[in-house]
């Protein structure tokens, strides 16, 4: 394949101590290496996945039977709020930033991220933000309990925790914005020669677009919580009716952030799925450019549909109609993507290793979650679904068997490359099947509960909802327990895995799909210190 022989050039000037990572624990504090920071992001996200998961277990335990069993209602409401905040800002978003840190430089042939020091800072600000928000659990009056959307006037009744939660949101916002700026700069300025935009892997593309989304929305969120802060402590009246404000205004500002925010979590998911599926179908991705345009279209549409979260606040008819039709439009680019993934698998020589299993489950279950979203986009019927378990089922389908499953897939897919060890395929498959079955036992019945009228964010419920809640809780416990298998696999793989020797490309012909597979396994501490050489393609 190669016209030039590989050789390892040592420039004369460098000293031995510059060759590897710093020694000792200080390495992890001061590191500016994209791989170290990526690892820290991923491990932190995994830890938060279990923290948020533990909160979900408390919620499902309380809802196992009608009546109040384990926790008081105030704490229950704190759990629903904190579960959402931890999972969104502590688990899913950091996990994708971690993947971006690890993979983007390796995928575009760059030596590191564009701004390595800022990279370190955004990680540690994330940790600070999450610790701050976790500390509210121990404060007088409890953690925020008004839902993760922090709607006034309810959220203003939070006790001592309110300003801490708001500053935590500021920290998390600044961290995300810095991360996004770094990723955009890396992608736009650090690509290897001939890596034109339309030749970038889709994961890079989706992150480029996500980066722009983050820069546009996180400051708006920071602004809206700052208004909450000044309303509470400095006598402004942005959302206070007594002073001429309007609480509905908060919802508009929040969802201007909130709707693109859900795409921040799903677009990189699409990117990873588009990376994994072709490898295991042994075909190039079907419709590459349509994937890029579809991603951009979804990102654009995400800014003009926010009020579909607010159909019941008393929007004018024209508003209901506009937001209804605009929301339905999103199904078109999303449909393009689903068809492209299906067409990629069509007549491919598919094999079903764990990453592929999770990716296929993603395509199926995300589509299901998309369909329930389409149901709720219909304004007149949304009045029935609004704030019931139906919406809970919907967004959990688009987050758990979609974003979380794809994060699992990404873990299985790249772990051999990162560690140089093969994970245990048998346990991986067990993890997949337990997760895929239990996630449906967990969330599917919640559709029925919602349609029957069970409201969300309540610790107790009417007796007719008992059966499905019990089934849902059982599914939840199985799902929660199966994730421990993943934890075991991560630890086992880092420690040596199956002991099998991992080749550079790991997966058959993976090097045709991405630059990262041309690097050795495990990946050296520094890669592409000079851009990779472009060579004419003479192989198949």
């Amino acid at each position, binding site marked *: *394949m*190669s016209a*030039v*022989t*590989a*050789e*390892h*050039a*040592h*420039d004369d000037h*460098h000293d031995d101590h*510059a*060759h590897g990572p710093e020694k000792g624990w200080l390495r992890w504090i001061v590191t500016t290496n994209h791989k170290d920071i990526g690892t820290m992001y991923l491990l932190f996200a995994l830890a938060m996945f279990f923290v948020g998961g533990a909160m979900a277990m408390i919620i499902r335990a309380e809802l196992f039977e009608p009546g109040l069993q384990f926790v008081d209602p105030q704490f229950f409401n704190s759990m629903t709020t904190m579960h959402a905040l931890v999972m969104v800002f502590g688990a899913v978003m950091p996990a994708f930033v971690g993947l971006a840190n690890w993979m983007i430089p390796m995928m575009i*042939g760059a*030596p590191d991220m564009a*701004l390595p020091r800022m990279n370190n800072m955004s990680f540690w600000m994330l940790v600070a933000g999450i610790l701050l928000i976790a500390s509210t659990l121990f404060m007088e009056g409890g953690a925020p309990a008004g839902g993760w959307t922090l709607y006034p006037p309810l959220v203003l009744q939070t006790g001592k925790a309110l300003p801490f939660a708001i500053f935590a949101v500021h920290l998390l916002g600044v961290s995300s*914005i810095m991360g*996004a*700026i770094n990723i955009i*700069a890396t992608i736009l*300025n*650090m690509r290897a020669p*001939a890596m034109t935009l339309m*030749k970038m892997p889709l994961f890079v593309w989706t992150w480029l677009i996500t980066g722009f989304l983050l*820069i*546009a929305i*996180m*400051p*708006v969120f*920071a*602004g809206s919580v700052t*208004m909450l802060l000044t309303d509470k402590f400095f*006598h402004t009246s*942005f959302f*206070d*009716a*007594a*002073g001429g404000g309007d609480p509905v*205004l908060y919802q*508009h*500002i929040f969802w*201007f952030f909130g709707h693109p925010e859900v795409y921040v979590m799903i677009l990189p998911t699409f990117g990873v799925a588009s990376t994994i599926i072709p490898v295991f179908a042994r075909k190039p991705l079907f419709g590459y450019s349509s994937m890029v345009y579809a991603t951009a279209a979804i990102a654009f549409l995400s800014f003009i549909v926010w009020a579909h979260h607010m159909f019941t606040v008393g929007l*004018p008819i024209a*508003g209901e109609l506009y937001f209804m039709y605009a929301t339905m439009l999103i199904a078109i680019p999303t449909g393009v993507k689903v068809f492209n993934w299906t067409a990629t698998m069509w007549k491919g020589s598919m094999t079903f290793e764990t990453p592929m299993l999770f990716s296929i489950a993603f395509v199926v279950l995300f589509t299901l979650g998309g369909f329930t979203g389409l149901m709720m986009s219909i304004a007149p019927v949304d009045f029935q679904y609004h704030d019931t378990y139906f919406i809970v089922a919907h967004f959990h389908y688009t987050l758990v068997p979609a974003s979380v499953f794809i994060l699992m897939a990404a873990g299985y897919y790249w772990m051999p490359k990162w560690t140089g060890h093969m994970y245990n395929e048998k346990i991986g498959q067990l993890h997949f099947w337990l997760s895929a079955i239990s996630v449906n036992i967990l969330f599917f019945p919640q559709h029925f509960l919602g349609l029957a009228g069970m409201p969300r964010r309540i610790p107790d419920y009417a007796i007719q909802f008992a059966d499905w809640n019990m089934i849902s809780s059982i599914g939840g416990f199985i799902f929660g327990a199966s994730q421990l298998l993943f934890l075991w696999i991560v630890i086992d793989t880092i420690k040596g895995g199956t002991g099998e020797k991992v080749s*550079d490309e790991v997966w058959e012909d993976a*090097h045709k799909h991405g630059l990262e597979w041309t690097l050795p396994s495990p*990946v*050296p501490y*520094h*890669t*592409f*210190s*000079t*851009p*990779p*050489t*472009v*060579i*004419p*393609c003479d192989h198949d």
Partner: protein
Amino acid sequence: MNRVENDEKNKKYLNGSRIDCVCYDDLRYGGFASDFTMNNEVAVKNKKLVRNLAIVAVAMFGFGYALVPLYDVLCEWKWIERDRPDAIKAIPETAYEIDVNRNIKIEFLTTLNENTPMIFRAEQTQITVHPGEYHTVNFYAENKTDKPMIARAIPSFSPALTSTYFEKVECFCFSEQTFAPHEGKTMPMRFVINPALPYDYQTITLSYTFFDNTQNAVKK
């Protein structure tokens, strides 16, 4: 091979002919930290891009605040059904032709926000009026505390669209009300239903909520 040679090679392949697919030689993976000094051109480009992106982020923070006046402006549009600011503005008394064929039921609702320590009620909870006919309804409010109180009543209409046709000549809701300790006041509200009110509406519910503004007013 050094960087210069590498760049030369890249240039050769990139400039020479159209590249159908991108392939990279996998030779340069094992570099060292000090191998990489970001070349100047890229560093300058990064700096510029970061500055621009940071400006966008700051501008978006401003945009969040700009949504506040923007929201009020957009809500002025006729087709947006929201309680209009007119609802707390006095409208000069004009003589309308009374439409005796139509009866509009007006319901009054009185609420206290959170723990506002007051008594607040309407002397009539429901009246039936003809469009164009002036009426006065009295509301009673009392300060239950030993301290002076400044409070503000905020109206809300259901259906919201009717607020445009509910014209108030006099109302205690136009301004903040000051109460001496334990003072009780009877406050009038004089209104007319504009005969232009669409025929779809036969019932209008007008709700007033009293907010205790004492603390805010003192600090201002």
